[in-house]
């Protein structure tokens, strides 16, 4: 697989404060890459530098083989960006916003109309083409921004917390569009989010904290490496259950009558279930999440 983004020893300082502390990673062409971490971890700094609007302190950053510092305009031509905060022109219509974008990126005049309809169709906003941006809802504005960023057919799409501040339904919709894009258009997608569960759709995840990448792999590998499945159980006879758990060497904690059991060995756990079956009142098994991964690695909750 071809590497679309290559970052090597990237460092960014603001005065004495080090926002990004020498990170290296690369992203394969056509994949979804998620950048996770708490606020202030250095995610936006990295995205802004890759998008050529922030100067690096040191290191090498390449997009599609071009250096983001020395070949700035070439890089700008192959990327599409959706920033954390809105960058739409509120006093213009959706169509006018998209047209301006077409002018900026030198899309041939004869093709602009057709392309505007094309990208608006992707985000289901074709019938809003003539509306003022200021009259749209938050979720629709985000979709307009995504449509706009696709207008010049970028090879890489940067999405900096595209779903922050949106309701769960709209959030799910936006991720649907993103996955669709990656599958159908084979665009490389680089996203940041602090909703851990949203990163599950990505092929590779980098977890960042205090300016450093502390984990880098696919969501499944990270989860199996750093988390254990957990069982939540209530029993009619707590004493018997506890004895059983101790027998199989299962670590557990309890809160009044609710037991949280870490499943070390699935086979052992099945045995416990078998032996205890008549007495089990409730049982729920939960897979580890990326949030658990983050907690495990950093010892703190991402929203903290």
């Amino acid at each position, binding site marked *: 697989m071809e590497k679309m983004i290559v970052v090597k020893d990237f460092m960014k300082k*603001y005065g004495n404060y080090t926002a990004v502390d020498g990170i290296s990673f690369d992203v394969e062409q056509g994949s979804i890459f998620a950048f996770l971490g708490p606020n202030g971890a250095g995610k*936006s700094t990295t995205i*802004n530098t890759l*998008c*050529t*609007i*922030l*100067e690096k302190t040191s290191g090498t950053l390449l997009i599609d083989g071009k250096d983001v510092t020395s070949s*700035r*305009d*070439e890089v*700008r*031509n192959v*990327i599409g*960006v959706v*920033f954390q*905060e*809105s*960058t*739409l*022109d*509120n*006093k*213009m219509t959706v169509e*006018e916003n998209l*047209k*301006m*974008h077409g*002018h*900026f*990126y*030198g899309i041939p005049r004869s093709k602009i109309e057709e392309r505007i309809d094309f990208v608006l169709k992707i985000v289901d906003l074709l019938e809003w083409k003539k509306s003022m941006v200021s009259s749209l809802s938050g979720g629709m504005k985000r979709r307009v921004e995504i449509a*706009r960023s696709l207008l010049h057919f970028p090879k890489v799409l940067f999405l900096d917390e595209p779903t922050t501040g949106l309701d769960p339904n709209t959030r799910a919709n936006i991720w649907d569009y993103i996955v669709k894009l990656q599958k159908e258009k084979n665009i490389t997608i680089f996203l940041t989010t602090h909703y851990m569960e949203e990163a599950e759709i990505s092929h590779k995840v980098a977890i960042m904290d205090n300016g450093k990448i502390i984990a880098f792999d696919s969501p499944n590998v990270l989860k199996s490496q750093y988390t254990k499945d957990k069982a939540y159980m209530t029993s009619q006879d707590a004493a018997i259950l506890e004895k059983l758990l101790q027998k199989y060497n299962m670590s557990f904690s309890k809160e009044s009558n609710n037991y949280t059991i870490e499943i070390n060995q699935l086979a052992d756990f099945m045995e416990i279930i078998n032996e205890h079956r008549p007495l089990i009142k409730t049982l729920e098994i939960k897979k580890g999440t990326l949030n658990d991964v983050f907690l495990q690695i950093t010892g703190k909750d991402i929203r903290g």
Partner: protein
Amino acid sequence: MRVIAALWFRNVKLFARNRVQLILMFIMPFFYLYLLSSIFKSAYISNPVNYVLAGIVIIVVFQTSLNIATSTIDDIVSGYMKEILVSPVKRVHIAIGQMLSSTTIATFQGILILVVGYFIGMRYASPFTPIAIFGCMIIIGLVFSSFGLYIATCVKNSQTFQVVSIAVTTPITFLCGVYVPLSLLPNGLQHLALLNPMTYATAFFRTLSLEKMSLTADELLAEQLAFKVNHLVITPQMSIIIVLLFGVLFLILSTLAFSKVDFSLMNRTNAHKDIFQQ
């Protein structure tokens, strides 16, 4: 060229959509005209209506071009400038596009006032004078647009901008000879007025529109159309060169401001939104 045209068209369109601004633009000239012609009657200047009208036209061109150019601050605060800056658009094209649109609006307003002037009896001897005036309005509009644009890129925050804008425009407007004749100013302020680029813009424009380019230096000095600094007489021709140099300087400065990739300051302005905007 395409980007310049697109930015120009967008800004003019935005201006036309703002009804209040549009109505004010039509009303303001009449207000100035009434106010100033009464003041200048006491200043012993021949032909006060023409003299005053020339002053009003140029001050309106100045204020409008500066105001519209500084509306760039809205684009910076709203985040739209970020969309422009991540695109492969040449930075100097951004600056020129913004400048051309404010110059267009300013010149349009200047023409409005001249039309009003025509109805109250202002006439030119030479048919070339209106053309020269038109050209001159465009040049002065461009010069002060570049100045306004530079202020906008420096401040990047709308609250600070209000203060800076007033602090910059007030001395420029009051110390240029339009509102108050320079001869009526105290000595110290008269010297200060000579540092004001708008003083030279006003002098040149007045000489042009009063059709007095061919007067001798002494006559010009008497009419307050030329200035004496020590032994050097600054003629209207020299005045326009000073104004042009000022414009070129700020065009370069604002292009540089857009080229600076580090817009981290811009992010911070957005972070300081008040509670109701979040």
